[in-house]
């Protein structure tokens, strides 16, 4: 019986992973791609302290920690033509040279995770070309190799990569929880619509909780 996990708690905290989605300079820092497009990074930046707190809870509790980064190979061989076209309409597309290096290209300054949330040694970083962390990556294999059964998902953006990873986590058989106060969208109405969709009918693909619930759930399980 658990109000935090969708069905039941993990057998031990080592079977749960905190998954931090795309907290990259390009999405949530001044000088990154979203900022250069003239969009406001206030929403995506605003969750950095909460995500840091989630990381602290996970590290203290002994959960596995995964970070993801969205980006493409330097030769753009993994970039669909329509994705490049769609982003270039904004004036600065994937692969183009910007203030923080080439947009969403692996290895560039803008592709890095913001310094406040830098991965620690021993944590896994998954580089992904799509929105779902499961698409064209070894994420599922890495989780299974570590015996992970439960995912706690945070990061940006809620309507895009967080929602995709949450839905696909369900498809792959993981019990998934999104922490509502540790995720945001570029535009608030899209965040609110996403939360309404994810919460409907008690959570079709998993549950929606928050930092307090996460802290309680981790405190209630002992290895």
């Amino acid at each position: 019986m658990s109000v935090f996990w969708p069905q039941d708690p993990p057998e031990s905290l080592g079977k749960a992973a905190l998954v931090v989605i795309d907290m990259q300079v390009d999405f949530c820092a001044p000088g990154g791609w979203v900022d250069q497009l003239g969009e406001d990074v206030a929403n995506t930046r605003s969750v950095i302290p909460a995500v840091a707190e989630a990381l602290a809870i996970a590290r203290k509790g002994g959960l596995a920690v995964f970070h993801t980064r969205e980006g493409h190979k330097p030769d753009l061989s993994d970039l669909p033509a329509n994705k490049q076209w769609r982003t270039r309409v904004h004036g600065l597309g994937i692969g183009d040279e910007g203030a923080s290096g080439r947009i969403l290209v692996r290895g560039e300054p803008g592709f890095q995770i913001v310094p406040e949330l830098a991965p620690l040694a021993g944590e896994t970083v998954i580089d992904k070309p799509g929105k779902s962390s499961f698409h064209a990556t070894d994420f599922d294999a890495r989780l299974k190799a570590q015996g992970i059964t439960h995912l706690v998902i945070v990061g940006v953006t809620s309507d895009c990569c967080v929602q995709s990873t949450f839905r696909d986590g369900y498809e792959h058989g993981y019990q998934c929880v999104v922490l509502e106060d540790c995720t945001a969208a570029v535009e608030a109405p899209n965040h609110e619509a996403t939360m309404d969709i994810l919460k409907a009918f008690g959570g079709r693909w998993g549950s929606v909780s928050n930092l307090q619930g996460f802290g309680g759930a981790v405190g209630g399980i002992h290895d």
Partner: protein
Amino acid sequence: MTDVFRKIDAHPYAWPFDGEWGSQDTALLLLGFQAGTVADLQAEGEAEIAAALAASARNTGVAVVATRRGYRDDHAPAATRRQAPGDRIFKVDTPEWQFVPTIGLTGSETVFDHQGDNAFHGTGIEAWLRGKGIRNLLFAGLPTDGLMHASQRAANDMGFECLAIRDACKGTSAARHEGQLRITAFGNGLFGTVAMSEQIISAFSR
């Protein structure tokens, strides 16, 4: 014989992005038009529109694909626990699991079965589409915020050029339908584009 179609004046951009589409590289996907779901969502109207789209697609040689969601006793617990009202997954071979007769399947369609919401997960549909040389996908499905969007999201990641047919989809609420389609079109089509069935049928018939 290959028909070439004119661009659709979709939201937020004229679709497909490069104007390249015809009967040989396009498929119409009818997702989750099952008796129980149509009844739960009161989506008879959307099913009738899906039937009209399918008839028009057949006339032009566009592939029609139908998918249905269902669980079996040996499926993952995640599928079997989805019994709550609103967006239920039905047991395979029950009357509620069957395709609703309204969509007018003729037996010429290719059918894919899936146990979750993402019709591209573990079904082989991607390999089938690639094998046929299909890259443009038209989405009709129920519910908008469930199975339909889960599948469009996955197809978009795979690089397919996607269009959601607004009036051939219905959400578990009007707000969720609108919200999901707004997210689809955000950022110049983060997950593809949105248009009406009449625009598709009109393009097919020219």
